[in-house]
């Protein structure tokens, strides 16, 4: 047990929040980190995640609360004023809730390609440490997941954690569950410790960021009784952009024979068709594009296309804006 570990604040917990979508390993990373803190670093701790049913691609938050060994942990409430926020998916940075409550001297670690500073970082505290790492790319190159990379960055960037201890914890976990993946995850972790950049002078906010606890849409005086929903098809207002993990299908209209097979395989119902001579059986229907608001990037359209008209492309900034074909331009903004 390492007796030198000491927490920065005697009077409160040291708290971390991971912001992710299901499938990127945020829950697993939180578990490895918190388990190491408790069983290898001699701290007291709690770890849990907020997610509903077991779906890939939907938003999840993972919480870690650390205290001194003799400090009891009693609250089971989510972490609202984190010392550290780790963002597993770059697109989440555009939601204010992602960084809500970050402490003035806290740390934000996010995944993103080098280059331009993404929008939304100005809403961070001026005094926060902001760290970027291209976890998505490194994970792909190392045949690992972003969680191994980000755990490496976290280990290196947050003084509380000892890099070797966390690496050992990660390796032991994989050795137990998937021994064949130990080497690739170790490599991803190591690159996470080395390849991050600290972005200076991005936050503009003085003091801790406010906590966000949004009210539900309906309340007991306004909701239709019995939980019924009277507005049909209202999930059309949802934006599922964050469900994609860096890739999207692109239609080459020149190669498309408008056979309709992709439409039978598309789970996201996001292909845009234009009918000619509509009633009741049209004389022709043409595929005109994809509404990326709904596309989760599964690529089943590519798999099913007989002519190679659909291809898998990297989702570079601005690409969606350029290609997007809205399904309901009059109804959904």
């Amino acid at each position, binding site marked *: 047990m390492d007796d030198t570990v000491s927490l920065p604040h005697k009077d409160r917990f040291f708290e971390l929040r991971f912001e992710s979508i*299901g*499938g990127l390993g945020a829950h697993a990373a939180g*578990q490895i980190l*918190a*388990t190491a803190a*408790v*069983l290898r670093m001699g701290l007291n*701790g*709690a*770890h*849990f995640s907020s997610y509903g*049913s*077991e*779906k890939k*691609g939907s938003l999840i938050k993972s919480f870690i609360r650390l205290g001194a060994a003799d400090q009891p942990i*009693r*609250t*089971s*409430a*989510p972490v609202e004023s984190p010392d550290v926020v780790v963002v597993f998916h770059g697109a989440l940075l555009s939601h204010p809730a992602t960084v809500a409550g970050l402490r003035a001297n806290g740390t934000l670690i996010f995944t993103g390609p080098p280059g331009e500073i993404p929008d939304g970082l100005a809403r961070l505290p001026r005094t926060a440490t902001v760290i970027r790492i291209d976890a998505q790319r490194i994970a792909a190159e190392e045949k690992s997941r972003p969680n191994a990379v980000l755990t490496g960055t976290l280990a290196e960037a947050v003084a509380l954690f000892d890099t070797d201890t966390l690496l050992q914890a990660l390796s032991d976990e994989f050795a137990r569950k998937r021994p064949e993946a130990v080497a690739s995850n170790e490599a991803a972790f190591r690159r996470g410790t080395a390849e991050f950049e600290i972005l200076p002078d991005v936050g503009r906010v003085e003091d801790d960021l406010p906590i966000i606890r949004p*009210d*539900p849409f*309906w*309340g*007991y*005086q*306004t*909701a239709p009784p019995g939980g019924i*929903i009277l*507005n*049909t*098809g*209202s*999930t*059309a*207002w*949802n934006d599922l952009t964050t469900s994609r993990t860096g890739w999207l299908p692109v239609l080459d209209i020149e190669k498309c024979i408008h*056979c309709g*097979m992709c*439409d*039978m*395989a598309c*789970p*996201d*119902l*996001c*292909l845009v*068709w234009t*009918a000619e001579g509509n009633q009741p*059986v049209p004389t022709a*229907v043409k*595929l005109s594009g994809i509404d990326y608001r709904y596309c989760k990037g*599964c*690529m*089943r359209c*590519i*798999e*099913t296309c007989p002519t190679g008209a659909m291809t898998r492309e990297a989702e570079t900034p601005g690409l969606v804006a350029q290609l997007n074909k809205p*399904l309901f331009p009059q*109804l959904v903004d």
Partner: protein
Amino acid sequence: MTPNGETVVEAKLETGGSVKRPVGQGLIRQRADFRNGNEAAALAARDIGFHVMGYFPITPSTEVAETLSEMQAEGAHDIVMVPGDGEHGAAGICYGAALGGGRVLNVTSSQGLLYALEQMPVQAGTRVPMVLNVATRTISGPLDIRGDHSDLYFVLNTGWIILLARDPQAVYDLNFAAVRIGEHKDVRLPVLVAYDGFFTSHQKRRLEIFDDADAVRAFIGPPGAPVTALDPTRPVTFGPYMNDPDLINNKMQLTEAMEAAKRVIPEVLAELATLSGRVYPVVDAYRMEDAEAAVVLLNSAAETAKEVADRLRAEGRRVGVVSLNSLRPFPGREIRELFKNVRAALVGDRSDSYGAGNGNLALEIRAALQQDAENHTLILNRIYGLGGRDFYDADAEQFFAEVLEAAAQGSVDTPFAYHGAYAGDPEKKPPAGLPAIAAEEVSRGMAKVTQDEKSGRLKVELEPLWAMTAVPGRVAPGHGGCPGCGIFPVLHQAYSVLEGDLVVLFQTGCAMVVTTAYPRTSHRITYIHNLFQNGAATMSGLVEMYLERMRRGELPGSPDITFMMVTGDGGMDIGMGPALGAANRNHRMIILEYDNQGYMNTGAQLSYATPMGHRTSTSEVGEAKTGKAFHHKDTPQIFAACHLPYVFTASEGYPEDFMRKVAKAQWYAKRRGLVYGKVLSFCPLNWRTTDDAAEDVLQAAIDSCFFPLYEVEKGHTTLTYDPDAVGRRRPVADWLGLMGKTRHLLGPDNAERLEAIENEADRRWRRLKIMHGHEGL
């Protein structure tokens, strides 16, 4: 602190005396671990060494069975784990097993507890001990998977002992106590250990687990049932037919057993404390020494309130927190003792007893105090945290503020209120969503159905797939399904040919959860959810009401409605009884099953449709176990045996074949009666494939004859695709090699199992082929 700097705790024993020991060094050897409540229950189960576990997965308690399955695959325990067909079945399995005299475990939550409820008084009334862990969760409806105590409160009158575990450590410890308490000769009652769903079930905390198997065994002792159903030398009649005047005496005995438990529980907990050093008084009184105001809460919220109590104490406020470790028997005497000098108490109930004007806990505290004529404690009751609404420090602060005010002024302004409900903003209007689908928009003749005059069977002609893209979708995009999910192609293909007005009922499952996350819905037609025990019966009722109201001329415009129930394969386990009831009654409706071979909505537990050997989270693979132990359920043949007008199988990978069958299904459901169809539906997450592997995997399942495409029309079986005939037959191994959940079956250790799977697939296929070729089958 000891001279070595170790923290020392002093454990007071209710039987007198106390135990002193450094943390981490109990009287028996223990080791530190970092586990959540579910894992703690599983570890306790392993260490207790139950004989049999009957269970059915339900969030958030499922992880107990999953953890035990994982341990079992590694050879870490030998508990026989029996997956029930539903919680009612699981409770039956447990009852039967317990009658056999060994130790029995079950785990459930929410609807599962309610579905098992009927069995609970049976078990208590016939005095058969077992242990049931409940990760408490809100009961439906509307369906909510998060934690409150609305399920637990239904158990209060069943005759079960109820222990409450406020954190994962308590879950671990109280399971050991539960075995001993329930089996005590003066008690002989089943015991329930309740902990908060998600707040405790899914939150990892530091805890200590026993590391001395001999000492644990010595504490637990042998099961020692006085009579069992497995001793032919001593035949016993269990469960006689007993009316008055006898039954009241049986219940008197049960009440006396509860009274005995009031004595036994502290004894057992004290004895356990001598092993663990951890003390559980029946009433957990925190800083109540001279408290003038108290907050009373059950389970995890009480722990949050303690943090706040510490802060208020530091400010000189005389406050404390009361929580119960035993809810049944109810510790009335201890409560009266504790509240002698308390001026006001706020009782928080994480469930309402609608219309009673108080939650159950408040009622019982009031009733307990009312027996003390000297007591003048003012009681406030707050209903809080329903549906898993978080309980923050600020909530506890408000509770203390309200109860301190009452204590100060000597009166209560608001005896009963909801805490944390939101009135709403009248200015807020929901966006319109996509317009509802009118019958004429979806009646485009995409599938033309004609009846063959000679055979009486149907023929279907489809428009080309491109033409179908013009049919507006009855389900809107923006749903929360996983990338690559096969359910939406299934729905989309079916909806492309189903004509006219359609009313759907989705049983609980992925399709239901991802299309109706409140306050939004993907459905553009009328949609109903009911729990998957009962969807088919619900649809039967609606169909009959439709027919009757049509007959009475009460439905404006006389809509020509088709009724369809959509279910997963899991729903066809737990809901099999009502589905067969609907089939036997032959109601005019379609049952469409998307079969993704497991309970995917809750994290991929095995269903009876899961094929043998497949890895799921309750049929793990390891040195000691290789996936699911028994063959997949042949649901289409079960429905065919109901002599329905039409039964079919299909795959989302063969859209034309599927859509022809759907068109026939609608024809029969409108004219002849019930139709059942099973559709193989891709699940990349839990089949462990890439998101875009559907076509290859589905094709291999069909070409290997594991999943034959066929129909049974008016009792006549027809294969609609024959891999043998087109020279595409492949070994089952070709299919199993494509999925992460089955790849282990190709290893040399599993050659026998692989052969068994191949043989069973082939046997069922040959049987179908014979039926296909036979005029009368």
